[in-house]
């Protein structure tokens, strides 16, 4: 095994053992911190698929997280207060496919427009579309608008009881493993090769006869849907959702996780999420001005740490 493979294994084993151990020894707080961490790691892994491997710098991924969370919150709201009978249920058989489906659809519709453009246009347009969803949710008073929505009962799933913190964590961790496996499988497939080729040299891929637009769009939809699933988990974890989840600062944080950990590496986004959450926790316990050192760290990382932590610790591929 290479050094990087060992590192991947070590990070995952630690995530599997340490938080439940803390919980069982009476430190429930660390399990809840780790649950948030793992959910954001899934979102970062999904972003890495298009940002790292596909070269598409999406600055709107928080919108997918938010949409996924509202796909849990809105049916739960109607199940309790009535209205919209077709949607009103707590069943995971409806909520999870809804979260994945609605985010895939949103990714398809916005991707059709975004992917016609390149570079800085793409960054700004993904950002603008995310902001559109943000304002859309803010304007709908029935679902709390600006104030957000409380999820009164969590998604009812087969095998997992999400009201039990340990089972919620288990589901999130297993989902992370599946997401990592899925991205790895995609990247190593013919599809993934074309995607990476289109990042490196789009003209050559096009002249080889590949429709790079279609490949990019497919990757964008897969990434959006995965991120929507992470959002559904996040809604179940926080049981309170608000438009603030889709603020473009959240999108920026997801990007930071990917770059900090190492874009286009398997474990990079997970590593980035770990560092991000742990650092945020430590800094914010010392000062309410924690965003100042955080911002400086971000600047320093971009300026000096090429290839992220995975590159730094695991060596070049």
């Amino acid at each position, binding site marked *: 095994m290479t050094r990087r493979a060992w590192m991947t294994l070590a990070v995952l084993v630690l995530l599997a053992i340490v938080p439940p151990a803390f919980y069982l020894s009476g430190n429930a707080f660390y399990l809840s911190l780790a649950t948030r961490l793992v959910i954001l790691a899934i979102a970062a892994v999904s972003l890495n698929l298009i*940002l790292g491997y596909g070269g598409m*710098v999406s*600055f709107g991924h928080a919108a997918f997280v938010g949409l996924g969370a509202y796909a849990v919150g809105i049916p739960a709201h109607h199940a309790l207060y009535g209205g919209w009978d077709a949607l009103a249920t707590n069943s995971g058989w409806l909520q999870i496919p809804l979260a994945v489906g609605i985010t895939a659809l949103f990714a398809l519709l*916005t991707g059709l*427009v975004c992917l*016609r*453009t390149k*570079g*800085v*246009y793409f*960054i*700004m*347009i993904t*950002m*603008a*579309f995310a*902001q*559109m969803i943000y*304002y*859309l949710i*803010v*304007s*709908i008073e029935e679902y709390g608008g600006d104030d957000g929505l409380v999820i009164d009962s969590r998604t009812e799933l087969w095998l997992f009881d999400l009201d039990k913190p340990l089972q919620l964590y288990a589901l999130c961790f297993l989902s992370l493993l599946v997401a990592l496996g899925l991205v790895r499988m995609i990247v190593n497939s013919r599809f993934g090769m074309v995607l990476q080729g289109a990042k490196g040299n789009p003209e050559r891929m096009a002249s080889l006869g590949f429709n790079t637009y279609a490949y990019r769009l497919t990757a964008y939809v897969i990434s959006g849907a995965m991120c929507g699933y992470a959002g559904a988990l996040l809604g179940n974890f926080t049981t309170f959702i608000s438009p603030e989840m889709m*603020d*473009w*600062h959240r999108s*920026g944080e997801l*990007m*930071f996780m990917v*770059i900090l950990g190492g874009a286009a590496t398997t474990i990079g986004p997970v590593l980035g999420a770990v560092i991000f959450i742990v650092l945020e926790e430590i800094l914010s316990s010392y000062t309410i*001005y924690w*965003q*100042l050192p*955080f*911002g*400086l*760290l*971000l*600047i320093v*990382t*971009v*300026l000096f740490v090429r290839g992220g932590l995975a590159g730094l610790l695991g060596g070049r591929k």
Partner: protein
Amino acid sequence: MDTTLLIIQVLNGLQLGLLLFLVASGLTLVFGILDFVNLAHGSLYMLGAFICASLTYALGNFLLAVLVALPLTGLIGWLTERVIARTLYVRDHLDQVLATFGLILVFDTMAHIIWGPQGIAVPLPDWLTGQVSLGGDLLVPTFRLLIIGAGLAAAGGLFWLVNYTRLGMLIRAGASNRTMVGALGIDIQLLFSLVFALGAMLAGLAGMLIAPITEASIGMGNSIIITAFVVIIVGGIGSIKGAFIAALLIGLIDTLGRAFLDDLFSLFMSSAAAENSAPALSAMLIYLIMALVLALKPQGLFPPKVR
């Protein structure tokens, strides 16, 4: 819908459009010439508002405060270019976006430390707080007219600067081929710093003009920056003319959409349905227009000729 309300809303839209232009023109200048995406541009808008607020209390006069605050925000822009932006010109857009995102966190927290978490209201001199009659029962706040006047003056000044002065000639030359401009013996670094400072001053001015209405607050730059992005995407990145037309278009559409969409909808649906759907659609309106423009012209309405 009556004419008075329509005229007032058109003036409001014009005001929003001109403020958007002040923010967007700096963004588009910096991008067009320096090929640099500055997310922290909205922070300069916020800093302009805060500095102007403090100076208004210190000097006792709003207009005087604006005059002093303008060079100060220019100075902050200059320093930002020197310390952070300059090293990022050779990097890709992803790095620029992330580093300037970090810069936003730094600027926002600094503002929090210096001015506290609360917003700061900016008092106006008496002669600006009243209303002006524009014939009949049409009353418009004096200050709103001042914003429109100042916005138009700044836009006119910018057009003059870019099209009829030596500096403007260098800016246009830098936008089409900066290597050649450097080779001809122009201090390109100095030109870049000047453009950055100019962009900062324009964004700062927008912040100063809006502060007496909304008050200076942390994070005020974070929502306008996205709208400014929409403006420069629709107008064509790098084009000042495009930014001007798109800014007015977006300002008017957004304002009129919010004001009259429910009236329009109730013409062909029940008033309850109109009341429910109009706010949602008007919130999304400018983004849908952006999508439409991009679907028809991916480079925006007025793409710069040389790029």
